[in-house]
């Protein structure tokens, strides 16, 4: 296991380097200028030049990359030119919002999707299966941001139950926090639920067709126990994988939902960084999201390897 872990880490290394290269240079290709964003509509060339020097924006790009990489490796993502605050600190403070959003949507997705997927597979071709199929198709087809807008229309404007946007910290006020997170969590979770449901259904169908399940059925194992003990357990392995990947993906993929509900998370941070041409912040955020994705995938792989005895390491 240790050797396998080590090998996977080693394989991830070039990808991480590639991510850093893309994150840095792609962001620097973006036209416009932190400095002019900072100075607003009215500034003088001297002011701009002084600021450029301050943020080392006047050195060759490749040099800037290595300087940046050196800092990144020592845990320093630089300072946002716009707010003057450390990028890493800013990301961490925004992370709580996005992580909570991801947890709610994944939680909702799993709660709905796994039972539905199992029932669909068990009653294959039946009414539940049809409902599940339609749900699976709708879930991946309805844009999350439209769903969010519909929720706001219904629950905020028409019924007046929930706030239409903004964020209150879980620590400050748990009830208000949930009221703010319910709609974005559901809107984001719908697509995840659809994907996880389709996966569960597929995996269950595979497992139900396996010899050992047929054998167990032939031996007269009760239906309920058969499904849960024998089939679901094995079918869950790919489901865990998919859910993990989705979680990693949502870290940065929740931009649009965060925008709809004015949630100050990582996605909105990236959007602000783009708007302000805040290179350090954008590089940091993009890098953070991509690295988090790779690491979560790695973790999922390792869990998978642990769960599935067929994998050799």
């Amino acid at each position: 296991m240790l050797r396998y872990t080590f090998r996977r880490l080693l394989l991830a290394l070039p990808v991480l380097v590639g991510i850093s290269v893309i994150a840095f240079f792609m962001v620097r290709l973006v036209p416009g200028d932190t400095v002019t964003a900072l100075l607003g509509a009215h500034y003088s060339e001297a002011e701009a030049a002084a600021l450029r020097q301050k943020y080392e924006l006047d050195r060759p790009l490749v040099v800037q990359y290595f300087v940046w990489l050196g800092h990144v490796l020592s845990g320093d993502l630089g300072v946002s030119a716009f707010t003057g605050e450390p990028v890493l600190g800013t990301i961490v403070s925004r992370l709580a919002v996005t992580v909570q959003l991801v947890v709610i949507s994944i939680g909702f997705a799993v709660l709905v999707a796994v039972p539905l997927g199992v029932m669909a597979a068990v009653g294959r071709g039946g009414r539940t299966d049809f409902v599940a199929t339609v749900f699976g198709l709708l879930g991946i087809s309805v844009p999350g941001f439209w769903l969010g807008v519909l929720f706001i229309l219904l629950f905020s404007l028409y019924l007046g139950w929930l706030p239409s946007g903004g964020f209150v910290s879980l620590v400050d006020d748990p009830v208000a926090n949930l009221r703010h997170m319910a709609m974005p969590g559901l809107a984001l979770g719908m697509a995840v639920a659809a994907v996880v449901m389709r996966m569960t259904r597929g995996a269950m169908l595979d497992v139900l067709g396996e010899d050992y399940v047929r054998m167990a059925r032939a031996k007269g194992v009760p239906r309920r126990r058969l499904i849960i003990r024998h089939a679901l357990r094995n079918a869950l392995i790919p489901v865990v994988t998919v859910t993990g990947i989705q979680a990693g993906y949502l870290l940065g993929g929740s931009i649009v939902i965060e925008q709809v509900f004015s949630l100050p998370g990582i996605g909105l941070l990236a959007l602000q960084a783009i708007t302000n041409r805040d290179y350090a912040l954008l590089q940091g955020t993009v890098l953070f999201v991509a690295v988090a994705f790779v690491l979560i995938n790695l973790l999922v792989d390792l869990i998978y390897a642990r769960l599935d005895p067929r994998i050799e390491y």
Partner: protein
Amino acid sequence: MREAWHRLGRNPLALGGLTVIAAFLVCAAGAPFIAPYDPYAMSEGSMLRPPGPEHWLGADQFGRDILSRVVHGARISLRVGLIAVGIALSAGTLLGVIAGYFGRWIDQLVSRLFEVVFAFPDILLALVIMAILGPSTTNVMIAIGIVYTPIFGRIARGSTLAVRNATYVEAARSMGVGHGMIMARHVLPNITAPMIIQTTLSFAFAILAEAALSFLGLGVEPDAPSWGIMLSEGRNWMQHGWWIAVFPGLAITLAVLSFNVVGDGLRDALDPRLRGRGDVP
């Protein structure tokens, strides 16, 4: 192939999807004739008019007819989808086949590159590319095309690997047939089935992505009748009328849904082994 069509023909969901896609194609092609109004024409008298006999789907804050804008929106969405997927398909196939066919360091390089691109959430990557290129319809197509290239690349590479060492390819090689010829003659035909499925599903992604980018303000021109832009404006005007945001969203959902349904149907029809497997997008 004929058998596959036959199987597809027996799938009612897929047929429904095909019908909707056909309807959208008709809208896109004949938009100026089908739409009751000019999608850009403003009218003070129709400002925020709810759905009714004059404006079936209502009018927006400029008094523009929403039905006409939705119909013209099909043009933008389908065109963006077509070209973006076209870019991803050609670039992905090229890279994937080359990587799979030559193997070794080329394969390593291309595969790692795909992995790197995969690590970035698609919307975030598309946003940064849009920021680089600037907002315009052409650039939306390019951005989405780049983002989805690795998906096609991976499939092409996998399928190429599967046939690379097949006897008929070996034979062709030993007879001195050039690499390009072998790839075109023997490798490409073998990967069409998975590519057709992926192309259909990617239309759905591309339409969603265009809507999302426009919704975030980094997509097409602000007055263009794009579904994403209409939805984004509708969100600002929600308190004045539900219809401004609801109908464009419905159009997006319908279009995406039909491509997904047809993609699923194609998968079942072309590759019966995969039947019932819900693959992850």
